[in-house]
């Protein structure tokens, strides 16, 4: 039974379905929640799903983490580019959330609103 779960195809299917479900959990939160922090959180969950999908679908079962010595055979390592990309993306996402949160705090001070549904100063 354990062998069944260890085949690359099965792991691939688990990763794809799992990250897809996580993505839709985030999308669901984005569309149904009202508190601004929960909106940001849902966006963060969606992003995590994309990262998991990327790293998960490109990892080789028998490969090792990309930390090498001079003479190493390069084919036994995991692809390092996805790791570098996701590292960049995580930091950027965090910066965006910090900024968004500071907008929200300042807006709350002026108007007392945290509900995104009621943000309609400019309705005509």
């Amino acid at each position, binding site marked *: 039974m354990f062998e069944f779960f260890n085949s690359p195809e099965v792991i691939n299917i688990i990763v794809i379905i799992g990250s897809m479900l996580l993505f839709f959990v985030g999308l669901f939160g984005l569309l149904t929640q009202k508190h601004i922090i929960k909106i940001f959180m849902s966006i963060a969950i969606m992003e995590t799903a994309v990262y998991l999908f990327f790293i998960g679908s*490109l990892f080789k079962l028998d490969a090792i983490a990309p930390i090498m010595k001079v003479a190493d055979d390069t084919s036994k390592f995991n692809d390092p580019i996805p790791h570098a*990309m996701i590292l960049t993306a995580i930091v950027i996402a965090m910066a965006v959330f910090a*900024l*968004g949160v500071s907008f929200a705090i300042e807006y709350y001070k002026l108007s007392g609103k945290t509900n995104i549904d009621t943000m309609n100063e400019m309705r005509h």
Partner: protein
Amino acid sequence: MSSVLFVALPLLFGFSTPILGYFGKNAVAYVSTLMQLFLLYLGFDLLLNEGFSIELISIAPPLGISFVVTKVSLLFVLLFTSVMTLFSLYYLSYRSEKPYRDESKFFILINMLLAASIGLVLSSDIFNIYVFFEIAGISAYILSAYEKSSSALEAGIKYLITGAVASIFLIFAIVLIYIYIGSLNLGIIAQHFELLPFQIKLLISILLLIGFGFKVEIFPLNFWVSDVYQGSSTLVNALFSAIVVKAYLFVFFHLLYLFLPHGEFSLFLIYLGAFSMLAAEVAGLRQSHLKRLFAYSSLGQVALVFTAFALQNTQAIQAALFIVLAHSVAKMGIFFALALIEKEHESMESETLKSLNSPFLRVILLISMLSLLGIPLFAGFVGKLLVLKSLALEGMLPIIMMIILASLIEAVYYFKLAGYMFTSDKRRDVLKVTWAHKTILAFLSLLLLIIGMAPFLLSEYLFEASKLMLGGVS
């Protein structure tokens, strides 16, 4: 000289502002303007000497990142740098009366916006495009919330949330591209994209369309635009409509031409653009707030550019480039003039124009609006005519009808504004405009007239540029 300087120098400026701060209050402003003038010089230098070059960064592509300078990307780079230089010059005389808070931060932000827009246009690596997408986005969010009034902050929050959602879809597309093609370099992706299975191609295209659709302000995804324009300060709006949207538009269609050179989705995009234009102009008809009204007019113009680009033939792209130039110049003139009016009247309802007493500003606004409308002898006319011509050649009668209908609706509200400006007699005191502002505004209007009366000066260059853009040099 190296094109990387377009990004490196603004970054260097941004990081070193605390040092510049020691040299007095005005140092930051002057250094920023001088740097922009230098970048303008650099752009012309590249244009005259080389015209085409590939600039490596760190290591040669396809493994590393590279900047590709072609005639068409240089056109956009020059447009952005000159817009930003004019903006800085305009602001230099504006700041003596009503400066922004924390001016040095403002200068950092506009330079980062410039660097990111140029990076978007020049970069030939899709993940690098994502990074610049984020830099441009973040600077734009802060600029729109800069005044810290509740409407500005609300605009900033809306802009930020939509931007964050857009970037998820973009990065999803990039992830799929890397998984299936195994490279981030645009040239290599372009070679292999056609061979992908149809569903994957469709999925990547849809994700890219959604990711960029938020930023190029296309119909169902443009609900945030009017709020952002209304909440942001008037001068900053000039940058939004002259630089930010244009950079995203260029990148989107650059990617489209590279990935789908045979125009698989072109009919869908043409209808989307035409419908967006109509929807925007209809929505603009019932606006009374000036900034909101011009936001809808921007949406309409951008949608027209979108339609022209989506046609995917040389003449239409040439037309689109004409509209891009004309629209940037006209919108700058309008928002610069509105900034002066707002400072004096402290209101942006369209009724304000009734009490506007400055023949100069009235003429400037009128010229810009006529150009946006596409009246002969003004810059907007050439582009609109070319778009209609190439649509007629393709035999797309419904689209032509939609565009003409949208233009008629646009005409209604522009003439309403013109009526406010020229008929009423309840005027205030004369609004004083400094000579520096007068020079810049007159220069912008003159530019509109020159492009309108002598389009042949530009048409050859734009034709070559559009051939290059369609040919997809990466």
